[in-house]
Structure formats: C-alpha cells, structure tokens
C-alpha cells in the first residue's frame, strides 16, 4: 500500500490500513482457493495428463473433448438439461405461484413444494432411484404404470402356458389346433406349464363337453395332474381354465366366432354353418403382464434425472416468482380488468411481461445450476449407466479423479464449463456497474 502523500489528509494511511486488515482474510482465501486455481486450470488445460504441468499438448485436450464419444455424450446431455430444466422449472413455478396467489393455505403448499431444495441432491438421487425401480412390485412409478397398463391391456390368464400336445401349434401370438373341425365337432385344447398359483381363480374340474349338432364346442383345461396324466385327455383331477378367449377360424384363417371358457373350461360356438374350421386360443390370453419401464436404463436415464431435478427446483422458481407477483402494481392489473380484458389476457399481456425480470433471474440461476449438475447424476444413475447419464461436471470429475487421472482433459472440461457461465459473469458485472 502506498504511503500517504505529504500534506495529505491526516490518518488516511491508518484508514487504508484498517480497510486492508478487514479485507485481507477474504482476499487471501479468494486468491489461494479461487484465483490461483483458475489461472492454473486454464494453463493446465494445454498440457498432458499427469505431472504438475506435464508436456505441452496444445489444444489436444479440447479436441478430445469434442471428438471422443464419452465427452460428446456429456455435452449433448448437458445441452438437453439446459434446454429442458430452466423452461420447465420456470413454467411450473409460474403456474404454482399464480394458482396459490389467492389460496388461504398457500404457505403450506409453498412449504411442501419448496422443501426439496433443503435436501441434498444426493439424497434426492437416492430417493428417486427407489421410485424408479423397474420391477412394478418394488418400484412405485412402475407400479402405477402397471395399474394403467392393466386397465388398458389386461394381462392374459395364461401368460406362461404351453400346449400339451403337438397338435396345438403357435399361431399369431396364440395357439391353434391343427385338427380340422366341422359343425358337431369337439375341440380339446390342453395346456401345460401353468403353475398351481397361476390357475385362474374359480377353476373347477374340467369336463369334456358332449358333441352337439350344428355347434362346435370343446374345453381349455390344465392338462396335468399330480403324476402327470395322459396328454390330450380330460381326466379326473385336471382343472378347467376359465376366462380364456377361444377363437373359431374359417378355412381361410379368418376368425368367425369367439367365446370365453366357463369355470370347467368348456366353451361353445353356436350355429356354425357347414364347412371346415379350426379352433384355438386367442393371443390376448397369453399377453405378458406389464414388466415396467427401465427408468434407470440407457434410454430413459436422462429424462428420469431431469424429472427428479425439476422436482427439486420448481419450488425455487415458485417462491421467486411469487415474490415478483406480490410486488406487482395492483392498479395496472385492475386497470386492464376495468378495460374489459379477460383473466387470461391480463395474465398473458400484463402479468408475464411485468414478470420478465424475475423470470430472467430464474432462467439464469437454473442454467448455471444445470451446467454444474453433478450430485444427482452420481446418486441416481446406476454405475452401469454413468456413460449414458454423463454431463460435463460429471465427466470432469470422472476424468480427473475417479480412475481417469487425466488432469489435462479434466482441466479442459473445467475451462469449458467456465466459458459457458462467462456470459452470466459479464452480465452480473454490467448490472453492478449500472447500479453505482
């Protein structure tokens, strides 16, 4: 620090010294932990993988960054994060803020939605990983998916059944009896491979129906009893399979009639015109139950991460936007209403434009957050999917520390992230300089 100029204000030196003492701890820390490392990292990004500096490699590290598929995946995924998260967080926050504006218990709602911000992104990752489990028995989201899926396409009663004789052959998802049938014939459709607990409830002793003039009837039954039994023959101790959809096909292969089996497994096609037919079990009876979406698998891992991350941050946008709404000039809104604008017009033409500065803050904050996202990827994605879930900060850490040990490329990624947030840095400075 310069000595006080001769004839200067007395005590000026002492005042500067005081300021220096107050600032020293902060600036020493900022210098050692932020400025020195930033400079070092920029320089380091032009050198090889190991050593204090390593050997000069020019821009090779950056070339790796934009050519190796490991890093381009990270860049691509991070671009998706930037494109999706800020927009969704702002939109959901805006909707919540507007909806809660005139609700008496809005504080309770806001607290609930805001809560995830206090929780670590790591714990959030663990939490959502439990929800995303693929097995519908243990994963809540897929359990919900199963409820919906079962309502739309119910699982077949016989999803694992097999024909008991060679005359029953697979046919377009179902089974078809090769033996041709004529009116008055009987079709025996024996099935095996059905575990006792999979037999539809209400099943009774199977019965081979008597032939009937003008009809084709038959039975679908569990062609198995303790000890085995004779394939293709309805025996005592063998159960009928109720609720199975049976199809009658014409010689041209067209389905002409369908029927459902009764408790004893019997079915009946009535008033069949003369001709040759084939009977079989329809494909719907063999429909597999809902197996669950692979939320944590390669193709869905990034959307899954985005959903969990939006769950964290929607509350932030809501609170910031709600603060913006509450400081909104009421008279402007009232004037618009008096002029005959509908609520939607007021919202679209007055509220949203007036909120623009607040929405900008939400967008900028979220873009910065998303460019540095790390913890949730680490916790939510299974290790086997790290490659598909990859983002910049994660790639940086893996490359430099987790086995990678490549400080050159690691530094290059850090610099790349820094360059991406640089516009915000300049924006902050401009805003401050306008203030003073």
């Amino acid at each position: 620090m310069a000595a006080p100029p001769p004839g200067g204000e007395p005590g000026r030196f002492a005042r500067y010294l005081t300021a220096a003492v107050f600032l020293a701890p902060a600036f020493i820390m900022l210098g050692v932990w932020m400025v020195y490392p930033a400079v070092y990292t920029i320089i380091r990004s032009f050198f090889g993988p190991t050593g204090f500096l390593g050997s000069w490699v020019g821009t090779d590290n950056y070339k790796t960054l934009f050519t190796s598929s490991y890093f381009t995946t990270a860049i691509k995924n991070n671009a998706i994060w930037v494109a999706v998260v800020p927009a969704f967080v702002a939109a959901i926050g805006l909707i919540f803020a507007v909806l809660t504006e005139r609700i008496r218990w809005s504080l309770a709602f806001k607290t609930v939605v805001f809560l995830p911000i206090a929780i670590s992104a790591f714990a959030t990752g663990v939490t959502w990983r439990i929800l995303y489990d693929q097995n519908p028995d243990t994963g809540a989201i897929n359990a919900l998916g199963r409820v919906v899926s079962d309502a739309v396409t119910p699982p077949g009663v016989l999803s694992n059944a097999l024909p008991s004789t060679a005359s029953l052959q697979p046919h377009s998802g179902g089974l078809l009896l090769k033996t041709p049938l004529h009116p008055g014939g009987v079709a025996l459709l024996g099935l095996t491979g059905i575990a006792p607990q999979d037999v539809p409830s209400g099943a009774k002793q199977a019965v081979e129906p008597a032939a009937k003039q003008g009809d084709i009837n038959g039975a679908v039954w569990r062609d198995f009893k303790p000890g085995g039994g004779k394939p293709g023959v309805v025996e005592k101790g063998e159960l009928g399979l109720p609720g199975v959809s049976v199809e009658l096909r014409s010689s041209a292969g067209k389905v002409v009639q369908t029927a459902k089996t009764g408790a004893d497994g019997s079915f009946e096609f009535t008033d069949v015109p003369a001709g040759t037919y084939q009977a079989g079990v329809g494909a719907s009876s063999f429909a597999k139950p809902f197996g669950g979406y692979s939320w944590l698998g390669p193709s869905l891992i990034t959307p899954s991460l985005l959903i969990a991350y939006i769950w964290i941050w929607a509350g932030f946008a809501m609170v910031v936007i709600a603060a913006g709404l509450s400081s909104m000039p009421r008279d402007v809104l009232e004037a618009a209403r008096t002029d005959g604008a509908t609520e939607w017009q007021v919202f679209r033409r007055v509220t949203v434009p007036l909120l623009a500065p607040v929405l900008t803050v939400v967008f900028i904050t979220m873009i910065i957050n998303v460019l540095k996202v790390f913890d949730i990827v680490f916790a939510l994605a299974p290790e086997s999917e790290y490659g598909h879930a990859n983002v910049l900060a994660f790639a940086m850490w893996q490359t430099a520390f987790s086995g990678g040990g490549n400080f050159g490329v690691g530094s290059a990624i850090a610099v790349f992230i820094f360059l991406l947030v640089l516009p915000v840095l300049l924006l902050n400075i401009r805003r401050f300089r306008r203030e003073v």
Partner: protein
Amino acid sequence: MAAAAPAVEAKVPVPQERVSTKVLRILGRGPVQIVLVVIGLLWLVPTFGLFITSILPLSDLATSGWWQIFSHPGHATWSNYSALFHNSGLLTALKTTAYIAVGNTVLVVFVGALAGYAFAWLDFPGRDWLFIAVIALLVVPIQMALIPMFRLYDTLGLFDTWYGIALFHTAFGLPFAIFLLRNFFIGLPKDILESARIDGASEIRIFLRLILPLGLPAIASLAIFQFLWTWNDLLVALTFGQNTTPITVWISGQLREFGSSLDIIAPASFISLLIPLAVFFAFQRYFVQGLLAGSVK
C-alpha cells in the same frame, strides 16, 4: 422484504359484490384447491417413500415396494435405524459432516462480514474495482479449482481433513457472502455509524458492536445457506476426502449394491436430510430471504 403494513386501514367504499358472483367465485376456487392438494401430496411422495423404505426390513423390500406399509403396517420396524446407530462409520461421518458444516459457516460469516463491512463503510482506493472482482467470482464453477487444489492440498497436508474440506467451501462461499452482506450493510442507517465514529469508537469495535448485531437478518440468511450447502455437499468432499468423509460420501460408498444395501442407504439418507429439514423449518423466513437476495448468483 415485505413492506410494513399501513397502521390505519384506509376506508374506501367497496362496491357491493352480488351474492351470485360471490358464490361463483368461491365455487370456482374449489377445483384449484383440489388440484393444489393433489400436487402437494404428489410432491411429498418421494420423501415419504424414502422414509417408509427406511423403516421396512430388507426382506420385505426385496419383494414388494414401500407402499405395502398400507396393507401391512405391522412390518414397520426401527431395526434399520438401531443397526445404523451401532455403526461407527455412520456416526463418524455425521460428526465429520457437522464439523465441516459448522466450521465453514462460522468462517464464511466472519470473513465475509469483515470484507462486506469494508466494502460498505470504509473508504479505500479501488473499492469498486475490487468489488467487481468479487462479483466476477460469484459464478466461477467449483470445477475450476478441483485439480489445482487437489495438488496443493497434498503439499499443504490439508488433504483428507475436515478443515481442508471446510476451507474449500469457505472460499467458494465468500463471493456470495461478501455480496450479500455488503448490500445489507450499505442499507444500515448512516448516522448511527457516524456518531459512533465521532465518539471515537475503533472500526473493529463498530464492526463487532454495531454491524454484526444490526446485520443479523442477513447474517442469519447467509449462515443457513452456507450450513445447508456444506451439509448437502458431495463433490468437494468426494474429491478432498478419503477416510474423512461426510454423510453423503459415506452413503455413496454403499451405492454399488443399491438393492441389497437399501436397509443402510435409505435410513442413512433419511438421517442426512433430517438436519437440513429441521434447519429449514426453524429458519424458513431467513432461508427464503437469502434465496431471493442471492438469486443473482
């Protein structure tokens, strides 16, 4: 911050609302309320699910999800928790987390307040330029410092120590701390400071006796933020700790066997979020204020 409510309610004649429009207005709010209740419940599901998972035995979790609690409430057990509290690894991790979070919070508040005061009330050359430098540092990503500090910590013997991790957090918390506190201090009444100076109080005395107490609202916001930020951190501790690990890193060691370690992962994760939740509920007002002030970050 909310403006003070006017002491006397102005008596403006309000045009009488027709009863029918009033009824319609209240009815119209019904669906919105229902939608909000549903959303609110949905928002709680993940955390609730984590808690229920944490109180079910592993054998149950292998075959059915946490919602089985509704049909088998008797399966709930504290045994996962009692096993965890006999686990010295977890207890050490919790202690380390507390050291890092508290140490960092105290340091950031003190160092940040000193600098914030200097920027707000002391006169020195280049003050604005130095403050611009601080603002520039606001958005510097942590990634820019990981590699150099990894090397430096090794040399300085700070690697794998709780204070090494706390100091890293302190440095990266300082720009925000200085920014927030300087802006708050600058709004304090000037005449109080002037009269203290005329009375001959030293700057350090003014700082300790006037600025810190008056700045308490901003300091509280800052402290809560720093505490939560460090308590919840994973990346810094993962990089600079090896045997000294906070709770997040300790749990992350179990992630590889996610399904079969759920009886450790779920209760430990829930314990890890109890402290932040308690802090959040106790100081919600300061938390939101800090968030609003800091959203330029």
